[in-house]
């Protein structure tokens, strides 16, 4: 114990670090003592939760585990949730899953915060001026029926995020009953240009990439470890790839203009001038020298010197990459979101796919995908082209009733689209929502949804592995709030308004789902098993595994249609490229109100709770900018202000702002943190697919004169080691061994 003498002695002396820790230690002990003492805790104050009736397996303090499906992104990882005393506490991966094999990403882990989020909508809300008034579900349904009465099918639009499974089928039936074909499927971040290019090159939208079989992976901006397609699955393949095939540890080369998490893990990271990824791919084909026919003809012009000039990658690097690819086969070349985000994105992706074909990777590391035998359940996909056509219709005042589900276009639409203004022109707007996000705030009627941990459903992931699978989503616990409803239940209720006879047999969506699954029991692997057994086993597993059908891939390499636009001069007013950064935890910003995601540091910059502008240190010196300066980033569409982070992993002619932050609604953990780069995006579209070219926005930056301390884990703000280094080192040639021994 500390005595008063030692206190005096300490007070009279300068503290060193050790004493400082001692002092902290004492105060820590003191706090602990008061915590243990007789003034105990919650005796007589807190209520103990007890059961009214308890099943045998329910024992307080002991977890029960249920399998379900992660709904945080559409990769479709299977989860296993721990439930204790009727509350879900923790999610892990389901080890039986071919996709995530028992693992889960940070975004998936945060799923419990989606469920317990304090800002969830809890009652149906009807607009009354600028406020939402709580109404009953009966009134809400009646209102929808009333608004739909006499409205033509083509005056109705339904906007949704990607969806699949029985919900998709049921919604399709509802839209049919309304006589509308206007289902717009919109995911703000989706590899849609790559999908289109893949159809041309391989005959399928998304083949199976086998990183685990490749000896070299050359990735053009595909952040497969962070946010691309099925990151948990790819991370596991990547581990295999690093262990090596035939004892050869896989080599990863990442080509991009802004370093991603995957880029940071690469053996060689090559910075490329924004938009020239395809040119580089053709340059590599040229150096390889194995192409024949029209491909050989095409790449003739792409000699290393020219390619180096256009892309900024040195001739020696181009030759080294080609030499490595020649030496180690099979390899795998990936076209990611950085390559597709330009007006000529299709050309980039086509050139990259061509490289795969020239290298003979198709059929080796690129395999045909499997598909579920129920095509109607396959995922509905879409990107900004769908939003654009909805937006055009809205602008023309075409729609009387608009529904929105699982999308937040007011937040994610490029600013130049003026979606919010156009949305206001719709007659009656219904939002199915978890939070009062930017889009729900514009709606006339907001219907509160169950969380993914309270709701029933099925999902068919776009990217599947060894076999096809249907993912089961089941409630891990009872509803937290009495007045939220599952999307399936809502669609069923709406369908009953139109086709009461056909659907009257289904009491709720659960009954529909169970009925539909049992009807196809045979095809779902339950032939010869009685209904209850099949159903219980299905729920226990949380996955229905199917053999699935596999097609064949096209392997024929052709240069047809591959033309790159003439080299564009830099824009003198807006000299910099804006690269929207897609981070592993925030993605398109639909989960920003989960505080874990705000709190976990960005893996590359370690910044938390805020946005930043990545600028190359060289460029920053040129502009007289230092870290923490607040700069204004201005495009033709608008401007945002954010703190600067000096980042050597970005092309000097580009700046990057991560997407997902900058909400002005949604909830306490999202609203007011950071800026939203979607707001300043120009509407430049990809030429072949009509999708938004997300990397085409040009900006300029100017200093505002303000400066802040960047809140991050690394660097000066956090890494002060009280004047000491973490581990001091000297190089061997500086050591005089005779003195050391």
């Amino acid at each position, binding site marked *: 114990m500390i005595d008063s003498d030692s206190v005096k002695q300490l007070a009279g002396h300068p503290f060193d670090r050790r004493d400082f820790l001692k002092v902290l230690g004492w105060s820590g002990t*003191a706090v602990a003592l008061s915590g243990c003492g007789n003034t*105990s805790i919650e005796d007589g104050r807190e209520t103990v939760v007890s059961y009214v009736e308890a099943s045998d397996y329910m*024992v307080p303090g002991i977890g029960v585990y249920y399998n379900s499906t992660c709904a945080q992104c559409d990769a479709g990882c299977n989860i296993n949730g721990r439930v204790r005393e009727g509350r879900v506490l923790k999610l892990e991966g389901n080890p039986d899953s071919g996709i995530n094999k028992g693992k889960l990403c940070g975004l998936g882990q945060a799923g419990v915060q989606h469920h317990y989020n304090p800002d969830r909508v809890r009652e149906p809300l009807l607009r009354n001026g600028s406020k939402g008034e709580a109404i009953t579900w009966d009134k809400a349904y009646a209102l929808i029926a009333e608004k739909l009465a006499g409205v033509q099918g083509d005056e109705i639009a339904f906007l949704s995020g990607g969806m699949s499974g029985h919900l998709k089928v049921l919604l399709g039936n509802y839209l049919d009953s309304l006589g509308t074909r206007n289902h717009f499927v919109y995911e703000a971040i989706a590899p849609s240009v790559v999908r289109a290019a893949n159809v041309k090159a391989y005959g399928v939208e998304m083949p199976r990439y086998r990183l685990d079989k490749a000896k070299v992976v050359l990735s053009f901006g595909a952040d497969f470890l962070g946010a691309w397609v099925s990151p948990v699955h790819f991370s596991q393949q990547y581990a295999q790839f690093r262990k090596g095939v035939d004892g050869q540890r896989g080599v990863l080369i990442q080509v991009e203009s802004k370093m991603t998490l995957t880029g940071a893990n690469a053996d060689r990271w090559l910075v490329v001038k924004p938009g020239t990824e395809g040119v580089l791919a053709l340059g590599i084909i040229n150096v390889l020298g194995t192409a024949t026919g029209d491909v050989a003809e095409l790449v003739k012009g792409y000699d290393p010197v020219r390619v180096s000039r256009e892309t900024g990658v040195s001739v020696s690097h181009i030759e080294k990459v080609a030499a490595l690819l020649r030496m180690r086969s099979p390899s795998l070349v990936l076209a990611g979101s950085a390559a597709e985000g330009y007006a000529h994105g299709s050309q980039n992706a086509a050139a990259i796919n061509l490289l795969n074909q020239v290298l003979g990777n198709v059929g080796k590391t690129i395999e045909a995908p499997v598909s579920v035998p129920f095509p109607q359940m396959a995922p509905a996909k879409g990107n900004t082209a769908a939003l654009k056509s909805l937006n055009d219709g809205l602008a023309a005042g075409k729609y009387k009733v608009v529904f929105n589900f699982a999308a937040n276009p007011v937040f994610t639409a490029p600013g130049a689209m003026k979606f919010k203004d156009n949305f206001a022109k719709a007659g009656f707007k219904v939002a199915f929502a978890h939070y009062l996000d930017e889009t729900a705030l514009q709606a006339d009627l907001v219907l509160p949804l169950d969380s993914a941990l309270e709701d029933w459903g099925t999902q068919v992931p776009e990217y599947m592995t060894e076999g096809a699978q249907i993912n089961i989503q089941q409630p891990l616990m009872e509803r937290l709030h009495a007045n939220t409803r599952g999307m399936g239940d809502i669609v069923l209720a709406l369908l009953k308004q139109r086709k009461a006879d056909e659907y009257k047999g289904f009491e709720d969506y659960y009954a529909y789902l169970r009925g539909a699954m049992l009807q196809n029991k045979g095809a779902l692997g339950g032939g010869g098993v009685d209904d209850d057994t099949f159903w219980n086993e299905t729920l226990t597993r949380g996955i229905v595994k199917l053999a699935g059908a596999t097609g064949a891939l096209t392997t024929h390499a052709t240069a047809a249609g591959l033309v790159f636009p003439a080299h564009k001069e830099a824009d003198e007013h807006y000299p910099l490229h804006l690269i929207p950064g897609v981070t592993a935890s925030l993605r398109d910003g639909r989960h920003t109100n989960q505080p874990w995601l705000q709190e976990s540091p960005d893996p590359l910059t370690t910044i938390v709770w805020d946005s930043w502008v990545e600028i190359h240190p060289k460029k920053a010196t040129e502009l007289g900018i230092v870290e923490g300066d607040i700069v204004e980033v201005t495009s033709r569409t608008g401007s945002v202000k954010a703190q600067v982070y000096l980042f050597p992993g970005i092309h000097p002619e580009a700046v990057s702002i991560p997407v997902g932050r900058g909400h002005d609604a949604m909830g306490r953990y999202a609203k007011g943190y950071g800026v939203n780069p979607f707001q300043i995006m120009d509407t430049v579209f990809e030429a072949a697919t009509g999708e938004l070219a997300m990397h085409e926005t040009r900006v300029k930056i100017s200093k505002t004169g303000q400066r802040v301390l960047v809140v991050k884990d690394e660097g000066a703000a956090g890494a002060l080691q009280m004047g000491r280094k973490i581990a001091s080192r000297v190089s061997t040639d500086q050591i005089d061994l005779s003195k050391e021994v």
Partner: protein
Amino acid sequence: MHRFLRLPILLVGLFMAVSSYAANNSQPALTTEDSLGPQVQQPIEFPHNRHAGNHDASDPAKGGMEINCQYCHTYARRSAVAGIPPLQKCIGCHQSIESVRNKPRIVELFKYWDAKKAIPWKKVHDLPDFVRFNHERHIKRFIEQQDRPVQEACGYCHGDVKEMTVARRQKPLAMGWCASCHEKDHPVTAEGGAPIGNQAYWYSFQKPVAAQDAAAVIKARGPNDCWQCHK
């Protein structure tokens, strides 16, 4: 720039240390003394004495029914936390005890049952969140292995419940108090080395490691590592 911040931080730390030292210079008791907790008002005044108390041959209507603690508190032997018996448990017996069916407390009880609402019992025993006390381990040790009477074993921490109506905390439940038992050498065998209670069965799996003393009694201590409770 951060250097000048150090002194104020140190002073704040020092101040906190000294002031909390002053406030906490009384040590927690290291004895098994009784230390009554607050009298807790419960939604139903549950008579532990009536259920668990000793049978009174002269007036059976007054005495207890000697029900084993574990009959209602079934979770204690299966889980770290003891929980509270589900309402179903009460009803299971009381639906067929007509004689008390109209007593105010039982009427109240059935009101909850009819409404299918849990009774909002108030916590009587609580530990800070950084302490993990495990009921199951203690029951295994004392009741199953050493064959101690249930009421005695539960009573080490909960006091003489059969004399209470609503339970009231009897012991300090502070760390020093826990340690006062865990730090003692307890005989695990009788003189001559014969295992106490049912331990012969358990020792067929794992023999006690401690050495015998002069009287051939093996003594052992309860688990003493910090992490046993602070996980």
